[in-house]
């Protein structure tokens, strides 16, 4: 318990100091509220518009919870396909990288033209953001299967399918999860960007509206909420990993 407290207090104190400094300097230097609101202003405004913020937050959460798992699923599927069919890796890997070089902001309007103003283009956008880290990490993990274990499986006469399901996939799980964690960190940002391109709900949409009204305090409230969502998603993935990869020796025990 004490050791956990020791881990928590340095970042906690740092954040509190940062907030205090922010609060003091905004009052001290008489910074206009529309330029940079004080933390206390943001807090007050957050409470005041809690009901509308809640709706938009839930919309963003819903969008994330659809797009993120789909993106992860596509990423895993891509990794598996590229691993099992070697020539497909050679053919598709450049395409995979290319998909990440196209600016998301530019892609948004195009997706709207192709798929309309509904949820679909937004979901596709999140998937595009999320699948890549999973695919790359998964592919790396699958390729790095332990050679001795592989030899054992082959000697024992294991089929390709058995080698995959009983060795390669569980072996790739830790690196797959490092990809999923990166995706989880991007997912909410992806959702917020997706909401900028159209529709009438979500934190991204909310921020855009507030920006036109110079309501910086409300924008900050929305930013904080999206950060919290992101952290929540990340924590959920970490918990899932802890449960699925529970066989791994703990780092401090090694």
């Amino acid at each position, binding site marked *: 318990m004490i050791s956990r407290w020791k881990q928590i207090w340095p970042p906690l104190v740092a954040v509190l100091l940062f907030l205090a400094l922010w609060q003091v300097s905004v009052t001290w230097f008489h910074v206009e509220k529309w330029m940079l609101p004080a933390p206390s202003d943001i807090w007050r405004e957050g409470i005041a518009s809690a009901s509308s913020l809640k709706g938009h937050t839930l919309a963003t959460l819903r969008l994330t919870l659809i797009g993120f798992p789909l993106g992860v699923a596509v990423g895993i599927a891509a990794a598996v396909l590229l691993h099992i069919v070697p020539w497909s890796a050679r053919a598709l890997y450049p395409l995979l990288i290319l998909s990440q070089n196209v600016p998301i902001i530019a892609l948004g309007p195009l997706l709207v033209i192709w798929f309309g103003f509904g949820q679909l283009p937004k979901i596709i956008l999140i998937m595009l953001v999320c699948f890549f880290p999973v695919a790359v990490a998964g592919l790396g993990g699958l390729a790095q299967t*332990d050679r*001795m*274990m592989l*030899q*054992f*499986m*082959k*000697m*024992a*006469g*294991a089929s390709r399918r*058995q080698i995959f399901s*009983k*060795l390669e996939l*569980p*072996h790739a*799980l830790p690196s797959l999860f490092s990809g999923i964690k990166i995706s989880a960190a991007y997912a909410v940002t992806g959702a917020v960007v997706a909401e900028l391109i159209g529709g009438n709900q979500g934190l991204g949409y909310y921020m855009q509206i507030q920006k036109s009204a110079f309501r910086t305090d409300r924008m900050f409230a929305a930013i904080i909420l999206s950060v919290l969502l992101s952290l929540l998603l990340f924590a959920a993935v970490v918990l899932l990993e802890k449960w699925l*990869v529970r*066989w*791994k*020796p703990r780092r401090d025990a090694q």
Partner: protein
Amino acid sequence: MTNKTVPPSSGEPVKEETPDAASPDSGTEAPALEVSGISKSFSQRGRSIPVLEQVSLTVKPDEFVSIIGPSGCGKSTLFHIIGGLVKPDAGAVRMNGAPVTGQRGSVSYMPQQPALFPWRSIEDNVILARELKGAARSEAREEARRWLAKVGLGGFEKAYPHMLSGGMQQRAAFLRALLAPQELMLLDEPFSALDALTRSEMQRWLLELWEENRRSVLFITHSIEEALLLSSRIYVFSGRPGTILHTVDVPFPRPRREGMTEYPEFLRLKRQLSGWMREEQAKSGPLR
């Protein structure tokens, strides 16, 4: 079956390689493993490098046979050929009389490192080879538990491999090979990664276990003493390309005793084998 080798007279206990594998076995049982005339070379940067040349050897049913030789003599390649992972350029592999050249899944294998699957509990690791052949998990687990208790791993059934010491991991890996449905076991320097104390402890453990539960075993080792202690016959390999230089029938009766390493005959064989090994090392040594 017991070792049928007749203790050789004091004169020359070592016979040169006889190609008994080439002719059909005159006994009632076909050999558990019969490797005849295996040659293999790999190409490296356009050059062909011979690794094995005309290797023939036999493992009779329930016989413990060892291979020793300098490192890089192609012993592991031979295992890969027997296991069906690599196709030989020439020669054939037969098991119980049936041709199995290039066929996987007909041997049970124990690699140099335990190579236990870290995400499987010890009991699930031990049943792996059976599971691959479609055995029912619950049944296989039950037998695995009985065996784990027998080899001193009772209480570790549900533990993950990283919680076990190196020696315990090797015991589990050996059990995994022993419980495999295949009759012939290939053990590839299984104790080479262990410290000396654990190693000799594991040798005695393996000897005792094997003498109670006979299986056909082909065993690769670098240790002359280990080979003499465990096996009924030893094939001495040359340096690359690997050929069989000598075949040594180990005359000691079974069950083998603790004190046999002090027997004059044991020491004499050990000296003889060390001499051959030194010669081979010297031939290939200065080159690299």
